[in-house]
């Protein structure tokens, strides 16, 4: 069932939002248009059956990118292309894409029984013919994600955060999905519950040959999950590559700083000198390399010329040095 080869190809995709004041007030105050560049010319491919992670701080555009992949947001420029594959249910066509959201409290309808929440996509896509088959499938899905068949008749409020996230995963799998976009799926969970959900996701990936696009700000979670990863800063990829490579030999100063600033239980760095400054606004990004105001290595060239993303070893890097 498992094939390799690209499942998603994103080429030079950009997403910009017009956040200007209304036309009349712009005319009166002679203010120019203001464009928020959430995602700028991003390109990557995701191989089938692997996990591609996107890491970055708040406002770097990672969630916008996720929304573009699931089609909730149109790219302003560029294209996203899903390859035709043999799907999990044997049919041929583009992969079925589903999303798992961060907040398991907001992403389940509190007035629906869990069974109906999971059955909804099955009914909507007419994947099963009769009610008995749907009930059977819902029960199977609940067992796949580690809940019990009888949980179908309960309401979301009766479940803990981790169990709700399992329900979200079951709902995503109900469509016979091949490709899951996971936007911070464990950020709202406690560490011990996070471990349960991550283990579940790894098991499902092995069992069903799922492909994950994994969005997170938590580097240790990303380290655990990813095959390939991209570090994003102010709408652009600054470093990409195989996870082992990026973690083992981080090249971009931003990646290095991120890795240094994670509080580490194993080797606590109690005398750390934290990275100064904050992420600049994507409406008015700094000229040249967007990271230069926070970079210890910044030279004159960094302030004027934006480094292109060029191929380095097995990955890519956007930095004048290194």
């Amino acid at each position, binding site marked *: 069932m498992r094939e390799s080869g690209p499942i998603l190809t994103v080429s030079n995709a950009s997403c910009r939002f017009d956040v200007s004041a209304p036309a009349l007030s712009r005319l009166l105050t002679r203010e120019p248009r203001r464009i928020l560049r959430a995602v700028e010319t991003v390109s990557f491919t995701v191989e089938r059956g692997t996990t591609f992670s996107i890491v970055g701080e708040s406002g770097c555009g990672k969630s916008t990118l996720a929304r573009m992949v699931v089609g909730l947001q149109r790219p302003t420029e560029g294209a996203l292309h899903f390859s035709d594959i043999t799907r999990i249910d044997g049919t041929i066509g583009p992969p079925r894409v589903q999303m798992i959201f961060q907040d398991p409290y907001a992403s389940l309808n509190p007035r629906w029984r869990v069974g109906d929440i999971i059955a909804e996509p099955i009914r909507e896509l007419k994947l099963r013919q009769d009610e008995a088959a749907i009930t059977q499938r819902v029960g199977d899905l609940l067992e796949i994600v580690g809940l019990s068949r009888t949980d179908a008749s309960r309401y979301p409020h009766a479940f803990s955060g981790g169990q709700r996230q399992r329900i979200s995963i079951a709902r995503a799998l109900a469509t016979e999905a091949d490709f899951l976009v996971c936007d911070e799926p464990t950020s709202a969970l406690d*560490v011990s*519950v996070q471990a349960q959900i991550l283990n579940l996701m790894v098991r499902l990936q092995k069992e069903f040959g799922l492909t994950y696009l994994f969005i997170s700000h938590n*580097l240790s979670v990303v380290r*655990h999950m990813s095959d390939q990863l991209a570090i994003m800063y102010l709408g652009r990829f600054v470093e990409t590559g195989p996870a082992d490579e990026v973690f083992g030999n981080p090249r971009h100063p931003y990646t290095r700083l991120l890795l240094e*600033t994670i*509080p580490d239980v194993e080797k*606590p760095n109690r005398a*750390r000198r934290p990275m100064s400054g904050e992420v600049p606004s994507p409406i008015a990004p700094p000229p040249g390399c967007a990271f230069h105001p926070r970079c210890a290595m910044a030279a004159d060239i960094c302030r004027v010329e934006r480094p292109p993303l060029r191929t380095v070893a097995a990955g890519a890097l956007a930095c004048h040095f290194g």
Partner: protein
Amino acid sequence: MSAVASPLLSVRDLRIVFDGRLGPLTALDGVSFDIAPGEILGVVGESGAGKSLTGTAVIGLLDPPGRISGGSIHLDGLRIDNLPPEPMRKLRGRQIGAIFQDPLTSLHPLLTVGDQLVETILTHLPVGKAQARKRALDLLKEVGIPAAETRIDQYPHQFSGGMRQRVVIALALCAEPKLIIADEPTTALDVSIQAQITTLLKRLCREHGTAIMLVTHDMGVIAETADRVAVMYAGRIVEIGPVAEVTRRPHHPYTAGLMASIPSVHTRNAVLNQIDGAMPRLNAIPDGCSFNPRCRFASGFCREHKPGLPVSAHAAACHFPLMEPAHA
């Protein structure tokens, strides 16, 4: 940093119950700990373990139906858990400062940060308006806000998340309290900003001798910030001790499981260690040790007898504490 020599905060056998229709639910079941002056005590645990509740009880902001049903809280020798509202209000802010998780909701959106600081200073310290403003400015500089002279007249919405949290810290510092309760102060912030805030807290602690009770679910933050750590589970402290001891050689199986479930940045494991099951709800706390249904080492004894927390530098409430490094 020993907690033995006259603690600043001393909590003894604290019990908090919530009165519900079906009878009282015990949310905090006999919690005892000390914080020495200038010490940072980390309090970790899963949601619902009672860590925030402990902090809330210490600042006297426990809302009905929650109430303290037993035990005592002493601050600098003064018993504060049974103080009437008015003296408690005077104490709060003056002696105990508070920093909460969401810096946006802890600031008044319609007042400039300067006004908020000045108001707090005038409430607690015997100074005039001009002096108060000068102190407000000094505080903003102290917590590392660039261009404090212009920032002081701005509104909270003009600050970024990390800067807002700095303002909240400045507010907590207004009256030079001896103790600060910091409830998830970095959870809403990005990692790079998080490191800035924990560094700031550590510096303030060192320079002013302020004690901090740092409540968080992030073991990494505790490992880098706290001197000692208390691990909470289902309303009780299950392990307490110096931070390096507890994280490297946990004695309680829950702490060991918690430590092992944290993914590592250094290596990639195929499967993360997980503790199966979930923390019990308040109305279904098992007899004996509350962790026994999830514990690999539980025996019949654990199901019948509730383990106490021994008094020692590194103590675990467990009948069969682990003596070997559990996650080698």
